[in-house]
Each structure stands twice: as C-alpha cells, then as structure tokens.
C-alpha cells in the first residue's frame, strides 16, 4: 500500500502554483519522500510504546529538522523542569508540510519520539535519538508546528484558529574553504549571477558549477537564500545536496578551494570555523558588505540583530488559539519559552541559553524584523529584551550593567539590566 505521504499532497498543489506546475508535482513527491525519511528517524522501533504512556503533560510537535537540536535540548530541560515538567513528543518534517498539517488538522500517524527525563535515562544526551513511541489511534494533530520559512514562502495561509509566533532567528551564510583567504565578500548582484547563471554569469572565481554546493529545493537554507537573491530555488545552478554536512564536506575537501562556494545555516558554519571561511554579504541597495558577526572572527551576530546582515528568517511556531493566545497552556508555555518570553511558573533552567547553544538568535535579542521571506527590514522592539543575556552567552562578555533585583534604567532580568 502506498504511504499517504507519498501521494500528491495539497502542499504540492500550493507549491505547484508558486513554482510552476511541473516543478510543484516533483516537489510534492519530494515532500512525500522527505516525510518518509523524517519518519524513519524516529520510527525505527516497531514495538514502540504508546506516546501517551510517556510521563506527565505531553506536547506534540512537528518541526523542521534544523530545529531538532533546540527541541532535544529544550525537551530534556522541560522534562526535568520541576516547576512545570512537560514531555516533548516530536517528529521532524519539512516546513511547508508542517504548516499544512496544523492548518488542516492532519493527524500524524507514524511513530514519533519523545525526550526522556534524567531520572528515566540519565545517559541520554541531545546527540542521541529520541525514544520512539506510537501516537494515539487515528494519529495525532501536532499541538505545535514549526516552519523555518515564512508561511507565505510556502504559498499557504494560516486559518484564524492558528496563532503564529516568531521564534529564534535562523541566519544563513555563504562559505568558502578555509584555504580561500582571498575572497572576503560577495554582493547581491554577484550571487544573482553565480547561482542564477552558473559559469555563464562570469563572476570570478565562482565559475565551476560543480563547486557550487547548494541544497535541495525543500530546504530552508536554499529557500531563504533564494528569496534574498531573487533566484527561485528551482533555478539555482550547482551541486544539490540533501544535508548541510555534505556541503561542509564538499567545501572542506574541495580540490579547487579557490572556486568552491556553499550555502549553510550560520550555526553549521560556526561549528566548522576551523574548516571554512564566511563571506560578508552586501544586500541589494546596501553600501558595504557585512559578516553576520561584527567581524569574521567574532560570534556576536550583531549584524544580524541590527539589520546590517540581511539573510535570515524567523523560525515560526504555530498552535491553535485565538486573539494571539495559544489555547493549550502547555503548548503556550513551550512557545513562549522558545520566543524568549517570561513564563509562569519560571523554569528551573535558562531557555535563552539553550537557544544560543543551538546557534540561533532569540527573538528578544533582535532589533529588526521582517514580514516576508527576504522582505524589507524594519525596526523591532521585543516586549522583553534579552540583548545583554544574549551577548554574554554568545561571546562570554557583556557591557551591560549587572543587577540582582532592580535597575536605574531598564528591567533587571537574568542578572542584567535589559533595555525593557
């Protein structure tokens, strides 16, 4: 019997209109295949126990694979969180598929996975897979769905019954092998010609299309860059790879390091700085090129946070609710925590530290925002700033005033006088 995910899904119809009918059909099949691949990551145990038997309050999540490190770390901390213990049960799938699932109440029927508590499995670490479990009979509509591109980038619209919350920001970079110490920057126009025209674009030194390491069309890394340089995902020239790790390998082992160029999530680059160099990027209409960080060697993501580095997307978290309020209190607790907001009861851990540890930027540290993939930036003031805490966690230092209870100006939070 054909698996339901392998059939042509509504997502393929939406994407067909967005990207061209033929490509949409191909992408629909690809999404189905990706669903099967995602399922396989947690569906290895044929005799998995029911997910409902996992201890305590459960929150079911359907997330993009780039957010899995955060979900694992957060899941462990939440399970051990004495003030409000929650078990995260999750599965990974493509962003557009996840949006479609929560919008249409599509139950997830295959095995999922949950994060064990320290008492249950003291040896478990986020580097390990979750414990496989079976969803309830008839499947489970996720309490929380995650996308790493804007909903509009999938040509979908959320119903009024779904509350959309912006979570941490995911930045993307163009990287070259460490051996390439000549090229420091790339402009919007260069990127347009390199990836839109390939060798015919004539942009030195990126003339060898086999040395352009890109991703497949459903990956947020490619989609985000595609919107930023106005080259549709399906039209990119280069070697399409399924995983970020393959891009890292392609770059770091290239026989022509001077010609190699690849796209990565910034957290992947950060973990491979010993093998790669990041390029500064000059956006359309921008005077200079900037790195995501203040400099090539710093780790503060300052230019992402203040708008000088433009290639990023907010991670999107969706749950049922109305008027901006999520209905399920446990889901609201998790979403607010991911969004960098205060939660009640206060957790026994620092959620911002988990977000920073996963290589993404909490919304509360951002000073710019946008409303569409690759769209125009505008100033942003988060309800509860965490800039001081972020800089301390990301760089080891902070110029902010420390505090214990009150501040002369601003709000004392997390030991720092934050802006608000």
């Amino acid at each position, binding site marked *: 019997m054909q698996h339901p995910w392998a059939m042509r899904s509504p997502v393929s119809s939406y994407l067909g209109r967005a990207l061209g009918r033929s490509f949409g059909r191909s992408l629909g099949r690809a999404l189905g295949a990706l669903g099967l691949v995602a399922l396989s990551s947690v569906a290895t145990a044929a005799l998995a126990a029911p997910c409902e038997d996992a201890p305590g309050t459960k929150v079911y999540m359907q997330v993009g694979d780039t957010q899995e490190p955060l979900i694992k770390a957060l899941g462990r901390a939440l399970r051990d969180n004495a003030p409000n213990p929650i078990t995260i049960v999750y599965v990974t799938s493509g962003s557009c598929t996840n949006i479609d699932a929560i919008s249409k109440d599509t139950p997830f029927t295959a095995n999922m996975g949950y994060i064990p508590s320290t008492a249950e499995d003291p040896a478990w670490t986020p580097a390990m897979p979750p414990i496989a479990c079976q969803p309830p009979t008839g499947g489970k509509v996720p309490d929380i769905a995650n996308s790493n591109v804007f909903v509009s980038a999938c040509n979908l619209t959320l119903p009024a019954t779904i509350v959309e919350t912006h979570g941490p920001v995911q930045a993307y970079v163009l990287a070259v092998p460490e051996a390439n110490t000549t090229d420091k*920057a790339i402009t919007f126009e*260069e990127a347009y010609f390199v990836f839109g025209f390939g060798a*015919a674009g*004539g*942009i030195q030194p990126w003339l060898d299309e086999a040395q352009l390491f890109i991703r497949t069309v459903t990956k947020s890394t490619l989609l985000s860059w595609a919107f930023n340089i106005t080259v549709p995902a399906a039209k990119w020239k280069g070697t399409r790879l399924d995983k970020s790790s393959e891009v890292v390998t392609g770059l770091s082992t290239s026989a022509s390091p001077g010609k190699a160029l690849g796209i990565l999530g910034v957290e992947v680059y950060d973990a491979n700085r010993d093998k790669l160099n990041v390029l500064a990027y000059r956006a359309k209409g*921008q*005077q200079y090129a900037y790195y995501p960080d203040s400099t090539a060697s710093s780790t503060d993501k300052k230019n992402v946070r203040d*708008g000088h580095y433009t290639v990023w997307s907010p991670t999107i978290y969706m749950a049922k609710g109305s008027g901006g309020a999520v209905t399920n209190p446990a889901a609201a607790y998790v979403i607010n925590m991911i969004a960098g907001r205060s939660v009640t009861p206060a957790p026994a851990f620092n959620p911002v530290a988990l977000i920073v540890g996963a290589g993404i930027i909490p919304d509360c540290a951002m000073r710019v925002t946008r409303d569409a993939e690759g769209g*125009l930036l505008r100033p942003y003031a988060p309800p509860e700033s965490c800039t001081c805490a972020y800089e301390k966690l990301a760089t080891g230092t902070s110029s902010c005033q420390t505090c214990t209870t009150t501040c002369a100006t601003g709000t004392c939070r997390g030991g720092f006088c934050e802006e608000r």
Partner: protein
Amino acid sequence: MTKPSHEQPRALMRLASITSSITSSVLALALAVMAPLALAGCSDDGGKQEPDAGADAPVAPKCFEGTPTNHEQLINACVGAGVEKIDKRPVLPLLNSDGTLPPLP
C-alpha cells in the same frame, strides 16, 4: 619669533589691503570647487561620509547617521569602529548597460 601683539592689527590690515583684490576671487573659486564636494559629503536624509575616506581617496559610500526607521536606513546605518565592513565593487559582465539585472536564463 612672534610679533608684539600691538603690531598684529596693523600687519593684518596691510595684508588685508594687499590681498583684498584677490580674496574675493579666491573665495569664489574655493566656493565653486568646495561646494559640490561639501554637498556630496552630506545628504538630505542625514547621511555622512565614512571617516576613513581620505582627501585623495574615491568618495566613500555614505552611511545613515540618525535613528533608522526603514530598510534602506537600517542596512546602511553607520557602524562603530569594532564592526568590519567591506567595500566591494565587483566586475559584472552580464549587467545591463542601465545597471539592471538581466532576467534569469
């Protein structure tokens, strides 16, 4: 050696007298030369020259000095000395003559 202070006004008056006939023309010439440069260093949106632009260097792009309120101002806002910025003027062989990008193949 510095002249006594009571002699300075007289000397200045003599100098003024000698140069009075050419001062106005020199000033006019200076203004004519400097005005466009001064205007180039300012902008009606509060921009300023980057501090590293030397007298003989090509005119550096302007940065936005005020509080940014829109996309263009945000991406071009002035940055502190600790932020590395790169001025790249690439060769783009396929760029249209009017500076626009050609459609994708």
